[in-house]
């Protein structure tokens, strides 16, 4: 497959693995967090862990939007979808995200709620046009990458003067989540970040500067292909070895320093910051999410349908908060693989295959048994 296989080449990977082994100082540990779920998935699916020396460890971050969406927001969406006048449009990976008490959109759909899986924001617009007597609500979710498509949809709805369309906005921001991890009360054990791929195509490299400058953490923005990851890890090791802490861009083929200015401006025109937003596994983070600007209140489902905010506490036995900060591994959680599996996720890290626990369960759990045998 052209333009993909080139970044999955085994020989190049072997060469990079050799370089990483040569550069990694055996007398110290390297702990890098890949923020994005896309990176977590690539690590697991291509078996990158097997190609890294033991003292280079990847910590899987919270950058999977369905994983960090709290149960309360799912409960709000279910309550809305149960109204007979509502058609709720969602991306497919939201269907199984757990709400409170074992609920999910999938189960609500089975009980009769009109919930439609869409592949594009414009499918939701088409549904609103086809169903003028129903209220069509789009469940908007995602980091900076998926906010511009929501903006396109809002513009389309305005242009068509749709009166039966609105957005349940759950867009979140990457830099505040990285800040929350670095500022957490418990000391974190992270020596550097693999920076987001797609998010950075929108926001550029500048928003990561404070992490390098103030927190003295190297950041290397990397693409989602496995060779991108390997190269970024090598670049992070070199920064650590040199005592540098800079923002470097491995993903130059897609990320420009200033990002995508048109997308940034459009998002700024339509959205504004929320004071606080709840993240599953990370708690409430200030200025970490977006809502529609007040001029667009008629398109904001939360206002239009007076949706009451719901807060549901995370399961106290769930170790996601510690896993997301690099303090624990999935196997350290007593729910992992017992009460919490991809079929019945409890914590954020098990919700989608981009979460740390689900990726480890789905692709990597054989290593736990290998380690047990080896010891």
């Amino acid at each position, binding site marked *: 497959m052209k333009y993909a296989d080139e970044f999955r080449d085994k020989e190049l990977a072997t060469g990079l693995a050799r370089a990483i082994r040569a550069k990694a100082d055996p007398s110290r540990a390297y702990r890098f967090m890949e923020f994005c779920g896309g990176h977590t998935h690539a690590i697991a699916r291509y078996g990158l862990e*097997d190609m890294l020396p033991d003292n280079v460890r990847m910590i899987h971050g919270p950058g999977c939007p369905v994983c960090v969406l709290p149960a309360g927001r799912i409960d709000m969406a279910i309550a809305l979808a149960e109204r007979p006048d509502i058609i709720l449009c969602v991306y497919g990976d939201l269907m199984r995200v757990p709400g409170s008490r074992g609920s999910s959109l999938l189960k609500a759909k089975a009980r009769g709620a009109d919930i439609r899986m869409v592949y*594009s924001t414009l499918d939701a617009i088409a549904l609103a046009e086809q169903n003028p007597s129903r209220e069509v609500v789009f469940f908007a979710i995602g980091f900076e990458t998926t906010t511009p498509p929501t903006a396109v949809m809002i513009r389309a709805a305005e242009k068509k003067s749709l009166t039966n369309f609105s957005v349940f906005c759950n867009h979140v921001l990457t830099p505040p989540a990285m800040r929350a991890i670095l500022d957490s009360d418990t000391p974190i054990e992270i020596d550097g970040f693999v920076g987001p791929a797609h998010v950075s195509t929108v926001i550029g490299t500048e928003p990561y500067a404070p992490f390098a400058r103030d927190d003295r953490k190297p950041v290397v923005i990397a693409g989602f292909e496995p060779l991108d990851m390997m190269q970024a890890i090598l670049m992070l090791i070199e920064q650590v070895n040199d005592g540098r802490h800079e923002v470097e861009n491995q993903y130059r083929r897609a990320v420009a320093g200033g990002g995508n200015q048109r997308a940034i401006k459009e998002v700024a025109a339509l959205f504004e910051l929320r004071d606080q937003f709840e993240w599953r596994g990370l708690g409430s983070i200030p200025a970490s999410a977006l809502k529609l600007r007040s001029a667009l209140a008629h398109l904001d489902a939360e206002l239009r349908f007076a949706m009451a905010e719901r807060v549901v506490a995370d399961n106290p036995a769930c170790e996601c908060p510690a896993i997301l900060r690099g303090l624990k591994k999935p196997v350290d959680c007593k729910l992992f693989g017992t009460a919490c599996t991809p079929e019945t996720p409890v914590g954020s890290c098990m919700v989608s295959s981009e979460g740390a626990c689900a990726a480890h369960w789905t692709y990597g759990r*054989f290593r736990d048994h290998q380690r047990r045998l080896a010891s």
Partner: protein
Amino acid sequence: MSMHQRRLDLKTGCVDLSHGAGGRAMAQLIAGLFHEAFGNEWLARGNDQSAFDVATGRMVMTTDGYVVSPLFFPGGNIGSLAVHGTVNDIAMAGARPLYLSASFIIEEGFRFSDLKRIADSMGEAAREAGVAIITGDTKVVERGKADGVFISTAGVGVLPDGLDLSADKARPGDRVLLSGSLGDHGVAIMSKRQNLTFDTEIVSDSAALHGLVAAMVAAGGQGLRLMRDPTRGGLAATMNEIAQQSNLGFRLQEDAIPVKPAVAAACELLGLDPLHVANEGKLVAVVAPEQADTVLAAMKAHPLGRDAAQIGEAVADDHRFVQMATSFGGGRIVDWLSGEQLPRIC
């Protein structure tokens, strides 16, 4: 007893509730459309059942339901799929399929022309496969109570003497053979789904596999442990099922698993793993190591096994992990599909 009756309007007519009511309209639909398409001596006798001679030795029986959406897709339709799927379930035992039944649940308003296309391709698929559809049933439900047409089938076949294939028979060291490329059926269906239409050259691999199976049995019968067709849940589900039933693990080589570039590209776009995507004309065989090369050669010599490959082997493993060496050079588990990838794929 011939009574004047207006002919079925196969061009513009459609099924109404009377076609399932047991009256003259139903008799006309059965005679004018289904018998015509399936044409054989058993149906011609017009009974509620058909009698046939019983073979000596062991027989196999299977049943299956078809609810695929859309009904027509690149490379086939629900009718040909129903025949191939049923034949393959029989063939995976190493058996020779003989007779099928077909039961239709039709939604009021379904066009005769579409029903005829479906029945005709069922008849054609059955003739090609050398099996006969010897009994059937027709029901009509109100509009909205079904989605066009659903088909239920049953099939019987006869086993060669001494052959007893079963998914609990794999042993460590056995080789895993795959008859061809993965994911064609699932991607072909997906390319025609509402909301998702995309252009692709991929057609469903829907095909009857009993000819290929017969060649494999002839080549290495005593070394064949089991066969299974990786339909819903894909190769990943099939390998995990076998691992569970045989209480062992597997080591697969990603490099050895054939996936067409167009299928790989579609999966990449849609975020799917080709190992989870459904197939309707592929089989997995687990074969004793001594016979693996012979069986593989027999597969490659058959048109439906041209791209056959050895993709891994069985290993002792209490955890029953299906592991895979990735093309990239690492290792990973090939797990069951979690949740639902695509409803109504077959």
